[in-house]
């Protein structure tokens, strides 16, 4: 057979074709089996993975509740902080950057620093090269306007509003309101179960902390579609399905009992003094109108908008200042009350029937006890109880101890009835309980030896006795209202963000102090004389037309060295605390007031004038509201919201 014929003979292959065909057929069948497995058997798993690829649950921020004063003025609210972000790789270092720096008004030094940072990221070849960085926090509204007007010229630049806490009254009343801070890792471990996540801010002190669970609100979430490059995509409702979104619930608003304008008045009255605290309390309810501690801090600086450096600086100031701005001096600091305690010593003696109001003693300016001499302020001469309170005679009270058996335990019993030595239950900030020492306690502390000098000190509010400004205020309120000791009240109502009252709090009586009405009247008369009669210790500080009754105090301070203070300033820390405690008006009291000027010196000279000024402001405000109609009725002042 010739090759030509053979070439046309395909019989060599003939028997193999069907095997090849069968092989191909089976291969495709195998593939179909695999496709059946993926598309039918394992469809649900693959569907779930595909959805997981693209559906992201994005949390929706909630808004923190607003804190208002009793008249609806905003004390703490939220405002947007506009933060500028850039993607360095998309930022043209010549044109765009120059424009951006211009709009932001960057200083030369800051500009160089940021430029360096951007250049560094631009040079990065790794995964960081496409990242976005936070360029500047809380830029001004003018800058935001410029940036958005010129957005088309600024590729790679974006402005993101972030809510931050805003305190319109800044330093005034900062201790009561408190401030916010980012939750730290340690706290987060315990708070995670309550829904906190990294970067959350929460109240750290004051009302912000105590009422955190009311104020914070509940986060919502929303499902969105994101492609493989992390970009958001619109639409796709049919992919997401029905459970696409849970709306956030805004936090509850709080209506406080405070009067913001009175707080401002207190701040004005306190000008000229370095440190101390003031409490103004409604005597018939225990509601707090004013609670003021100095020196203060600006919670706006701490609460986050202006960047980490500003927060760090503010904290350093807060904890290195020897005047202790971080301390709430109205509730967290305990001080010897000095002579402001004398009315309670008097009531202790009177109610036990140990002393007679008509009896008088001779004050020769000092008294001798054992080998020691105790000095009075000056020679008071013949002194009755009235005069002893009004003109603050120590000798009278020492004699109560030495001659009339008004001992430590008698004083302590009355003191405890008026709430000294125990926390008031205000509920914000770490409250000091103060100390109302008994004979047993003093003996124990003095290693088993009791000295009568302890009782002499206790009678005039010195020695181991310490009180807080708030305790003293509530005790004077009880003196003014006939013996009802109230629990202090700071939050009047909880409201929803649209103003509906969710919960309203009524005044709570802690106890009714059993008092003899005549004895009380006697003390009240003496307190009035202290502020309004010519020899009264507070008389020189009086302001015409301000009807105030009260007692000054000048509490001695244990001499000591203060750490971190230069020697030439130590004298300040050894100066007496100046006190004034009282109420107004004297005949039908409305408010109790306590003023403490730390290391202020004499109470009549440094604390009493502040009290008069504060009560004058209180009267002016009441008059103004009376004229406006609806005196004292809390309204919502929507206009005050930022």
């Amino acid at each position, binding site marked *: 057979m010739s*090759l030509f014929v*053979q*070439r*046309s*003979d*395909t*019989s*060599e*292959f*003939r*028997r*193999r*074709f069907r*095997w*090849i*065909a069968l092989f*191909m*057929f089976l*291969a*495709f069948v*195998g*593939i*179909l089996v*695999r*496709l*059946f497995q*993926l*598309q*039918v058997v*394992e*469809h649900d*798993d*693959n*569907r779930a*993975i*595909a*959805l997981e*690829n*693209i559906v992201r649950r994005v949390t929706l921020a909630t808004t923190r509740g607003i804190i208002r004063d009793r008249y609806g003025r905003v004390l703490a609210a939220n405002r947007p902080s506009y933060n500028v972000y850039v993607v360095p790789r998309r930022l043209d270092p010549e044109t765009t950057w120059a424009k951006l720096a211009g709009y932001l008004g960057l200083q030369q030094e800051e500009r160089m620093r940021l430029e360096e940072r951007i250049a560094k990221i631009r040079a990065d070849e790794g995964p960081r090269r496409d990242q976005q960085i936070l360029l500047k926090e809380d830029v001004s509204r003018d800058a935001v306007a410029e940036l958005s007007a010129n957005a088309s010229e600024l590729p790679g630049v974006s402005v993101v509003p972030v809510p931050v806490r805003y305190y319109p009254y800044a330093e005034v009343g900062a201790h009561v309101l408190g401030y916010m801070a980012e939750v730290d890792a340690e706290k987060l471990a315990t708070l995670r179960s309550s829904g906190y996540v990294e970067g959350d801010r929460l109240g750290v002190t004051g009302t912000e902390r105590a009422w955190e669970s009311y104020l914070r609100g509940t986060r919502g979430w929303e499902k969105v*579609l*994101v*492609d*493989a*490059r992390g970009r958001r*995509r619109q639409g*796709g409702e049919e*992919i997401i399905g029905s459970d696409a979104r849970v709306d956030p619930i805004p936090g509850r608003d709080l209506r406080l009992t405070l009067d913001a304008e009175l707080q401002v008045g207190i701040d004005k009255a306190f000008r000229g003094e370095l440190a101390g605290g003031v409490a103004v309390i409604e005597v018939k309810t225990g509601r707090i109108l004013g609670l003021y501690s100095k020196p203060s801090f600006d919670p706006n600086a701490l609460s986050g908008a202006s960047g980490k450096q500003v927060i760090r600086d503010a904290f350093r100031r807060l904890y290195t200042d020897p005047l202790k701005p971080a301390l709430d001096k109205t509730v967290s600091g305990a001080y010897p009350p000095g002579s402001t305690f004398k009315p309670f010593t008097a009531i202790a003696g009177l109610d036990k029937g140990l002393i007679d109001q008509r009896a008088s003693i001779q004050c020769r300016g000092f008294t001798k006890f054992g080998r020691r001499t105790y000095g009075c302020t000056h020679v008071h001469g013949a002194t009755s109880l009235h005069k002893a309170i009004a003109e603050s005679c120590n000798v009278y009270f020492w004699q109560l101890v030495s001659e009339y058996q008004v001992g430590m335990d008698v004083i302590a019993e009355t003191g405890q009835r008026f709430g000294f030595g125990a926390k008031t239950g205000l509920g914000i900030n770490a409250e000091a309980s103060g100390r109302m020492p008994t004979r047993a306690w003093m003996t124990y502390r003095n290693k088993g030896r009791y000295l009568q000098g302890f009782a002499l000190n206790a009678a005039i509010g010195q020695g181991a006795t310490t009180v807080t400004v708030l305790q003293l205020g509530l005790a004077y309120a009880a003196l003014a209202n006939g013996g009802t000791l109230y629990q202090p009240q700071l939050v009047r109502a909880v409201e929803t963000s649209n103003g509906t009252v969710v919960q309203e709090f009524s005044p709570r009586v802690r106890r009714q102090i059993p008092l003899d009405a005549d004895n009380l009247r006697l003390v009240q008369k003496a307190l009035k004389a202290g502020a309004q009669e010519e020899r009264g210790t507070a008389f020189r500080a009086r302001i015409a037309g301000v009807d105030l009754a009260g007692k000054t105090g000048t509490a001695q301070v244990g001499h000591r060295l203060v750490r971190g203070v230069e020697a030439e300033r130590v004298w300040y820390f050894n100066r007496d605390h100046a006190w004034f405690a009282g109420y107004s008006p004297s005949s039908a009291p409305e408010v109790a007031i306590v003023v403490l000027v730390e290391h202020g010196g004499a109470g009549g000279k440094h604390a009493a004038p502040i009290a008069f000024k504060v009560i004058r402001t209180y009267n002016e405000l009441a008059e103004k509201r009376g004229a406006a109609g609806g005196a004292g009725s809390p309204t919502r002042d929507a206009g005050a919201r930022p």
Partner: protein
Amino acid sequence: MRGNDALSARFDWPLFVGAVLIALLGVLNLYSATSVYTGPVAERYISQLYWLLGAGVVGALICAFDYRHIERFAYIIYGVGVFTLVVVLVLARDVRGSARWIEFGAFRFQPSEFTKLCLIVALAKYLHDDPKNEGRTLKDLVVPAIITAVPSFLVLRQPDLGTASVHVFIFLTIAAVTKLHTKSILAFLGTVTVGIPLLYKYGLRDYQRTRVDVFLNPEADVLGKGWHAYQARVAIGNGGFSGNGYLKGPQNQFLFLPDQSTDFPFPVFAEEWGFVGSVVLIALYVFLCLWSVRIASQARDRFGAVLCVGVTAMLFWHAVINVSMTCGLMPVVGVTLPLFSYGGSSVTNIMLGLALLMSVSMRRNVVRPERF
């Protein structure tokens, strides 16, 4: 030209319709695969149409031309093919780690697509001239093996494991159609069992070895090297029984599929049309392959028969490897899905192959001319 009327009467309609259906589905799918993009990528379906039409015209000319003229120039064609591969190795620039293209101005041309046809032509010519109806041994296949090894090795050096293995698979398929002795087959299988591990160890580049590793253990590195294979599989499975609907496959729309238009058009299709669509498409490929084997069996000479077997093998292996790699039955290699994947070289090559099939088919019963 004699018998032109007869020729057109013998036009192989089933082959034509089968190919056209796949090509149309391919263009439709390409539109969806690139619908997420804007700019030139989104217009790929239009270029694909142009390529199909252009290659169709060339194909028609080839059909009209008797394939036996090709037999005469078979080794020259083969030589040109090998030469272009050498040119690629010398000239081409790297694209993602391998050099496969030669550039002519705006055009990029991938010689390794065409060397498959050159190889088929050369093998057909060799076997045409070497009839062994009494059966053959491995020794009789040494020359075809060398003919195969040269372009395969050059392609492997680019490096392009997928295309190189298609060359080898074409040779194996053609070898399988010859009358090999059973003893030879067993000897061959034995050699392969020993040879493949050695090849894996010494013959592969690092990245090629990783691909094989990823295939063998896909769950180990889902976010890294196995990402493409994993997401392609998820896309196919996400199609379910009846699919998500045209233009509505989330894995594709949300860019989880890599190279949707070139290497991974099948997952796009499977996600949108589901198992039903997959069965239809696979059935079309089954039909095309089996019909082509039938054409081979009816070829009027050895050259035509081997030519058809080679082209069929090319279609078959491309389809099987591509679909298998997307559904996790094979490692990911750059092998296109015939008439479905975007790419001028790929489309033209497949169309030329189909034209050769058509040419053989149309002449299966034509009276042999006196002298050829």
